[in-house]
């Protein structure tokens, strides 16, 4: 007996990578799956029905039940079509997993409006487009599971990805709101910030990699919270993300709601809520000189600048006197 027997799931971006791993595991656990993927390139161009259909064929060959959907998540009509297809084909919808994504990496000062808009449309609006129609049905049936995909690019930060990072951090925030909108109706909503070697992680431009390395960003979540370095990190196959998603979609996870989980290889973490970590207080209006002392010596102690100014930049306050605060 599978953990998802009788459930009906939509998995977006399930033609390849992490989404594919989730669709396959869902089917093995007894779910009937709408395998969504328009089969575009990593930058969102093109289109190919092959990847989604191939995953469906693989699921069927293994004795599972699945149907392909080739719509884009970037439009309201596309999102509705996936939910409708689940209901038409299998009579209900219990699970939505929002894995679909594209990349258009660029330093902010060179980023075009199109690069911003396209990435926001697929990732952030794409989440709204599937969640909205699914939430109507899940609320009525008093049952549902929504899994969103965030990323450390947004919840921690990354060079060359203001569009992707903004969308992915927004998805973590969206998750926390959806959890509160729907929790009382028996619906949970959580997010995954995955780590895996997929087609998407191959596209990060070399210039961004170099910048990150120079900024000391690569290899550490932050200097105060170093990422675990161990044999566990060698496990980069996208299939490793699927079991946690499967668990969160099972009945047993009915009370886990509104959280962001880092999942990479055999490592599963629950992320800190971005609540206040350290606080300073004055019973009135701060003056700037007091703030200078409190912020630097109390709030930000041991919390470094992730990208400090280069040595050859003349920085007022570092290399030339700052204008006095008082």
């Amino acid at each position, binding site marked *: 007996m599978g953990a998802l027997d009788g459930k009906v799931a939509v998995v977006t971006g399930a033609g390849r990578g992490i989404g594919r791993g989730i669709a396959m595991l869902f089917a093995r656990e007894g779910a009937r799956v709408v395998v969504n993927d328009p089969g575009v390139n990593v930058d969102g161009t093109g289109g190919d029905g092959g990847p989604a259909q191939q995953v469906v064929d693989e699921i069927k060959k293994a004795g599972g039940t699945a149907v392909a959907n080739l719509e884009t998540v970037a439009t309201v009509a596309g999102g509705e079509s996936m939910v409708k297809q689940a209901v038409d084909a299998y009579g209900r919808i219990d699970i939505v997993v929002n894995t679909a994504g594209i990349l258009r990496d660029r330093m*902010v000062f060179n*980023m075009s409006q199109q690069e911003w808009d396209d990435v926001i449309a697929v990732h952030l609006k794409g989440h*709204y487009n599937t*969640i*909205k129609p699914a*939430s109507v049905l899940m609320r009525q049936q*008093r049952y549902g599971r929504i899994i969103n995909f965030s990323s450390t690019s947004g919840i921690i*930060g*990354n060079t060359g990805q203001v569009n992707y*990072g903004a969308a992915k951090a*927004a*998805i973590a*925030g969206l998750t*926390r709101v959806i*959890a*509160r*909108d*729907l929790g*009382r*109706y*028996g619906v*949970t909503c959580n997010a995954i910030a995955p780590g895996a070697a997929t087609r998407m992680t191959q596209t990060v431009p070399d210039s961004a990699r170099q*910048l990150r390395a120079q*900024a000391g960003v690569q290899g550490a979540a*932050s200097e105060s919270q170093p*990422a675990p370095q161990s*044999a566990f990190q060698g496990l980069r196959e996208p299939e*490793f993300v699927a*079991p946690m998603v499967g*668990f969160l979609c099972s009945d047993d*996870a*009915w009370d*886990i*709601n509104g959280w962001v989980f880092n999942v990479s290889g*055999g490592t*599963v973490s629950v*992320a*800190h809520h*971005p609540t*206040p*970590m*350290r606080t300073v207080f*004055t*019973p009135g209006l*701060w003056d*700037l000189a007091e703030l200078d002392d409190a912020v630097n010596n109390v709030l*930000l102690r041991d919390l470094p*600048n*992730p*990208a*400090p100014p*280069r040595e050859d*930049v*003349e920085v007022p*306050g*570092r290399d030339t006197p*700052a*204008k006095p*605060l*008082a």
Partner: protein
Amino acid sequence: MATPLEGRTVVVTGSGRGIGREIALLAGRLGANVIVNDPGVNVDGTGGDQGPAGKVAKEIRDAGGKASANYDTVATPEGGEAMIKQAVDEFGRVDGVVHVAGILRDRMIFNMSEQEWDDVVAVHLTGFFNVSKPASVLMRQQRFGRIIGFSSGSGLNGNTGQANYGAAKAGIAGMARCLARDLGRYGVTANAIAPGANTRMTQTVPDAARQLRSRAGIQGQQRQPSIVNQLREPKYVAPMVCYLLTDQAWNINGKVFNVSGGQVSVSWEETPDRTIAKPGMWDIDELRALVPAMMQGLRNPAPPPPDLEVPGRAEAAASA
């Protein structure tokens, strides 16, 4: 009064009223040249009125400061560029961008229209891109700049009825972290503020959402009123924002600060808090055994009511 922002030019979006207005006024007193941007719309983004921005700019000038009003929307690239261009045309440069402008269209997700989603994301999140993109080009060239976005507890902690606003506000925090990493090496910092204050915007939360929150036990999570959170005027948010604009704050970058009354906090980054690991692939049964322990004390913010039949709940109670 010292004038640590003398010679700096700062664009403050949404500064016709509320928190933005207080930032513009204080920046003006601290010596900055201020572009007071505000199209003077209603809280839901409709309408338009040049009065608020014009009045704030005049107030700054009457007090001996330098300010100019701008009435463009942040929701379009043209609007964002117009504000930056006005700063350069009138004051010769742009040193700071503070994106306070925002609208609200609160609705439970199952009732939220595409328009309600799009309008809120356009003003808050894409609005932040629309002003910081053109500013970043100039700030990188001049090797100096300050970018400050406005986030919110609605996105950082989550809030009922605000999927659009909460997503956009969490996105702004994420974008500030990415801007910090793109621009830090050029002497430019980017940070975000999650403010608490009584303004026109906090009056509009629908009663239905308030009721849901209180039923969900969310309201009760807030701190009891005390001196610490009685100071709700928007003016209390301004000093921290203006401090981040000063030379002294050159090395403060990529952070999210909660500012409300006399309280200033730095937020947790969403780094791993608790971890389970194995040197191989988990199966669901193993996770079923271990994840609840990892989640100990981390509550469901909106648990299903006792009278709702929830698959898995009875089994959990039986095994407990």
